[in-house]
């Protein structure tokens, strides 16, 4: 399939992750400076130059597991910690949101506008940090350079590669259900109204021509949908009106993030197949991860800044409950467990991952502020 898909997948999923974390940090009333530090640390790690270099190399997409490991590390790139249940929920929300955006793109090329929407908002998060802003702009320019000139056919291949990656993922997201863009069976609703893609004519007309190319007859017919002309094309420049709303931040304090675990046995069966069947690409995946994480500079939580735990659920009890009731098949196993079971093991990866040991921060009250924080976590 397309060898250019990974950067788009990574940046858009990363963008969704930041939207969700930003919403939860505000919902959990994490102090502004701590919240900003978390977002800055994660964004700065995401757009690290070496990391981006590896990412943009032409390569195939790897498994959801491999990708999830990257995001788990990324989410822990700062003073914030997530329990397994919260990390699971975060990843589910990220993937379903981007799946929705890809599916609804009017033109295959519009996935680039979705990516730019994510980057525009990310730049908003870090507008006070010129160094990180520069890193993001650098990536922006790389995207324009590499994808700006791709043909419609190449974007169609990218679209297909992405959709195959998201195949069989039908987790219900309560916001999508409420807005009626997702059905109760987890499938998205494809709209049959609204603007046609840029470059597409309104359906409903047949024109017939003679040998000289002159129109000799026309028939109009009723098309089932209710379409209107596209107002204008979104901008593919560094700055501009993207026109498309897909990829903008759909979370706000009033729209809490929730998921329902959808459970048709057919879905679970295909998930089971994926996690149990030995992956012939396992070795390449592990090498890829080793290279990517080698390029990732993770700042370890040290110094006077104490860490804190973010909860993707509205209470600790809910989080515990979610961990207990999560269908076994949907549990994402961290990849180093898989590495010891697989025959092929990357020693390089094992060494790098050893460096990423996240030690449990003991809940010592070193200051009144921490007590308060700990209490608020319990709310």
């Amino acid at each position, binding site marked *: 399939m397309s*060898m250019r898909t990974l950067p788009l997948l990574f940046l858009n999923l990363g963008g969704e992750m930041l939207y969700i974390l930003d919403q939860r940090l505000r919902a959990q009333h994490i102090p502004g400076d701590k919240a900003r530090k978390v977002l800055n640390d994660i964004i700065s790690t995401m757009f690290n130059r070496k990391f981006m270099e590896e990412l943009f190399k032409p390569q195939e997409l790897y498994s959801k597991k491999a990708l999830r490991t990257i995001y788990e590390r990324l989410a822990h790139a700062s003073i914030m910690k997530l329990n397994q249940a919260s990390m699971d929920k975060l990843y589910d929300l990220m993937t379903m949101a981007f799946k929705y955006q890809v599916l609804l793109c009017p033109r295959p090329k519009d996935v680039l506008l979705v990516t730019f929407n994510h980057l525009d908002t990310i730049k908003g998060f870090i507008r006070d940090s010129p160094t990180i802003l520069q890193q993001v702009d650098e990536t922006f320019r790389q995207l324009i350079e590499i994808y700006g000139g791709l*043909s419609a*056919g190449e974007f*169609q291949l990218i679209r297909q590669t992405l959709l195959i990656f998201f195949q069989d993922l039908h987790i219900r997201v309560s916001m999508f259900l409420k807005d009626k863009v997702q059905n109760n069976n987890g499938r998205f609703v494809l709209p049959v109204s609204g603007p046609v893609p840029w470059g*597409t004519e309104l*359906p409903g007309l*047949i024109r017939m*021509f003679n040998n000289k190319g002159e129109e000799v007859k026309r028939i109009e017919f009723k*098309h089932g949908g209710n379409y209107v002309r596209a107002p204008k094309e979104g901008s593919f420049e560094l700055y501009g009106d993207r026109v498309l709303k897909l990829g903008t931040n759909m979370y706000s304090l009033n729209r809490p993030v929730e998921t329902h675990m959808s459970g048709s046995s057919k879905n679970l069966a295909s998930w089971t197949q994926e996690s149990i069947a030995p992956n012939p690409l396992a070795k390449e995946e592990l090498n890829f991860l080793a290279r990517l994480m080698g390029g990732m500079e993770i700042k370890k939580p040290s110094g006077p800044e104490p860490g804190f735990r973010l909860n993707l659920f509205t209470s600790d009890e809910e989080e515990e409950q979610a961990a207990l009731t999560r269908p076994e098949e949907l549990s994402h196993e961290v990849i180093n467990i898989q590495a010891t079971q697989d025959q092929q093991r990357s020693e390089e990866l094992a060494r790098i991952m050893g460096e990423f040991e996240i030690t449990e921060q003991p809940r010592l009250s070193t200051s009144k502020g921490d007590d308060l924080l700990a209490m608020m976590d319990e709310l």
Partner: protein
Amino acid sequence: MVAADLEGPYEPAVSRADLGLRVHWCVLPFRVLLVLASHRGIQMYESDGSTMVYWHALDSGDATPVQAVFARGIAASGHFICVGTWSGRVLVFDIPAKGPNIVLSEELAGHQTPITDIATEPAQGQDCVADMVTADDSGLLCVWQSGPEFTLLTRIPGFGVPCPSVQLWQGIIAAGYGNGQVHLYEATTGNLHVQINAHARAISALDLAPEVGKLLSAAEDTFVHIWKLSRSPESSYIEAAPLL
């Protein structure tokens, strides 16, 4: 009916990574073969799926690291099976009446971008010797005459969108495009005679019922349309009317 899925026990391994698998029944004068095209190569099976009679690995020699390598677009023409590739080349295989002695007889040049689809029909007579159309990602259509050596008869340029699906019927080329349009061309001249603003999203597939001249178009806008193809009694120009 054949349903293709991503898991397969047959060799060479058609594994999970085999995305975009295409399958086609090729009806030849003395046999029927089942042909599979993927990013690994081309496999041909006896019609009951029992034995693989031929395996052609794709030559990725010219491909840059950034190019996806795959086979796409399968059609039978006489005793030939034609399969399109990522480079734009169309591979022509000469198929014997029985047995595995299949030979790659020709590689057709005419396209510069990946082939999307191939359509064939028996030649319509002296006035219309065109019996194969190939389409690619740039929307270019090439019209061919089959034979021990295939001849390129006409080229119909694209207009910036891929042509994912093409059909050939009674000298009429039906092409579905990424912008939702269906075009009908005269195969002998390459002239555009009908332009249908059929769909609001890219066309996924066209199919044709040859006995009744009905064309079906399916697209990503979730709609399926059926069109009646005909020729004007006075001018014999191609016409189309909406049925569904």
